[in-house]
């Protein structure tokens, strides 16, 4: 069952683990952007979530509480951004960048006493029956709860935006906040909620790195993954399904190229190293180009709403 010295089952299983943080953060950011808000603070919220989750998990011994704390931490930080941009009408780009810097600094401060501690591990949630399916079982159904949660969120967010009234309102706010306001929708409230959701998802993604993927706390642990998540939202032209493709492509090829190197494949390492970026951009650009990709951006993205 080997393929060039690589066992595809193990590879695909670790691909899902590697992609989950990006997927969670990108989904959250997509919802935020759909409401017309550009929050560049994903990296900051992720690392803040990572440290909050790590501390909570270590102190309580429960990884579940860790993830809850991570979501709350990410949300708390995003609320700062919400207050700045929605109430004080600050420009969103610098506010988001400031959020990243602040998140990195705060996380480094909070995490100082937690370097070198091993967090409680999150048990794998083996789906009964399904996990016994040959090949598919070990790939799909022997992961931890957060992986399933991230996949469920893809469907839930897609359905929410497409089929529910609340989703329609959120999109309306993102497309034309003046009209939505005129119709009596609470533009700021909707945006507060969307920003908070984005923060919570980014926090979860961060905690997945510090609690599962790496399991440890180190300064700067997210190492720029938040920026990748931001880029994936754009390349996925604000569609949940494509965010999934983008995140899995990026995470998957990252893992694949390391495996290819370890297996001694005769491919230049430089090419392998840039392959995650190349492939992700290429694939998402191609699928977006076919149907009005970039024009799919929420019309009010990054604009300040002033209800006069």
């Amino acid at each position, binding site marked *: 069952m080997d393929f060039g*010295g*690589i*066992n595809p089952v*193990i*590879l695909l299983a*670790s691909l899902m683990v*590697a992609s989950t*943080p990006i997927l969670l953060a990108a989904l959250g950011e997509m919802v935020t952007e759909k409401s017309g808000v550009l929050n560049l603070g994903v990296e900051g919220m992720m690392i803040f979530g990572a440290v909050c989750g790590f501390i909570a998990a270590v102190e309580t011994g429960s990884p579940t509480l860790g993830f809850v704390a991570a979501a709350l931490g990410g949300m708390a930080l995003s609320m700062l951004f919400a207050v700045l941009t929605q109430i004080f009408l600050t420009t969103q780009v610098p506010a988001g960048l400031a959020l990243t*810097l602040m998140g*990195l*600094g705060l996380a*480094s401060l909070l*995490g*100082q006493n937690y*370097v*070198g*501690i*091993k967090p409680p*591990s999150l048990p794998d949630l083996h789906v009964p029956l399904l996990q016994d399916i040959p090949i598919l079982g070990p790939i799909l159904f022997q992961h931890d709860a957060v992986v399933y949660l991230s996949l469920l969120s893809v469907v839930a967010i897609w359905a929410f935006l497409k089929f529910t009234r609340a989703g329609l309102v959120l999109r309306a706010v993102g497309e034309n906040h003046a009209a939505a306001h005129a119709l009596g929708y609470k533009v700021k409230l909707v945006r507060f909620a969307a920003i908070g959701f984005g923060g919570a998802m980014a926090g979860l993604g961060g905690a997945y*790195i510090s609690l599962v*993927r*790496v*399991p*440890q706390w*180190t*300064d*700067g*642990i*997210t*190492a*720029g*993954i938040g920026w990748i998540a931001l880029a994936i939202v754009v390349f996925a032209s604000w569609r949940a399904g494509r965010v999934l493709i983008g995140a899995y492509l990026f995470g998957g090829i*990252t*893992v694949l190229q*390391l*495996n290819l*190197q*370890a*297996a*001694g494949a005769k491919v*230049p*390492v*430089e090419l392998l*190293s840039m392959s995650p970026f190349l492939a992700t951009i290429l694939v998402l650009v191609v699928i977006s180009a076919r149907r009005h990709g970039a024009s799919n951006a929420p019309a009010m993205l990054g604009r300040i709403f002033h209800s006069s």
Partner: protein
Amino acid sequence: MKRRTLLTAAAAASALTLGLAAPSFAQDKTKVGFIYVGPVGDGGWTYEHNQGRLAVEEHFGDAVETIYQENVPEGADAERAITQMALSGADLIFTTSFGYMDPTINVAAKFPDVKFEHATGYKTADNVGVYSARFYEGRAVQGTIAGMMTKSNKVGYIGSFPIPEVIRGINSAYLHAKKVNPDVEFSVVWAYTWFDPAKEADAAQALIDQGADVILQHTDSTAPQAAAQKAGNVITFGQASDMGEYAPLPRVSSIIDNWAPYYIARVQAVMDGTWESDNTWDGIGAGMVGIGEITDAVPEDVKAAAVEVMNSIADGSYEPFTGPINKQDGSVWLAEGETADDGTLAGMNFYVEGLTGEIPQ
């Protein structure tokens, strides 16, 4: 990091105003700057440089002021960071990563009165000295342990960038593993980063999936240690720092960089006005490279062999690169009994015979 930049910028501004008001005031303290490639909490490379900085502060007390900037990317942005530090009135600046080599040389040309010390590079100038540690001596000890302890005969090696320092480490570890275990094989994964915990963990995981039961790393975070611990039955070595929190397993020993004595000596030289451009390259013997405790997870005979290698290197009776050694293509590098000269070592860009794969160019 921008936050730090702001602080340095602010410091630069205030130094300027102070300088105008009282020209002699700023001269009282010797200002020493450090440029770091990762965060000081990485638990590895940057952590140890920062320990050196703290030792300087402790040794000189009020006579020095140290400043530092974390997470400075290698390349063009480094030039900006170093320039800013020089502008802020630093008398001596340590740039602590290989990729700062050209930026350091460029900035140094613009600030002839500021002294620069670049770690692990090879370009010097009148006001630029270089220093490094002979990590490959420590790799010889690790290779010995790795070769004797591997059961799968597969050793995984996480490389950062294909630069001489890293290649030396791979060659040294391989030669000494091969010496005690002729069947040993090395797989090298290039991570193309010094610090990215998630990627380092993935790289370690990929090597473990490929059957490696020993992981050597030349990246800065403790993430590979955590990955090995999760996998079980895999041993690792602390890199740059002791990483003792992962002892006794998976971390069975470590290479510890000890920069403090060198930093203190160089700061003293600047204070005395005796500083000159130098090229310092010390190893186990001089104490710049330390070997962390070999844990009880290592069998006695392996430990004895490792300690013997370590001691013979320390007292100078043994050189890790002693012939006969062939290059990867089979050509002779060192004849029987010949030892490598520092010039070849400093620019090493080839694998020794037996290693598979190519070095990315």
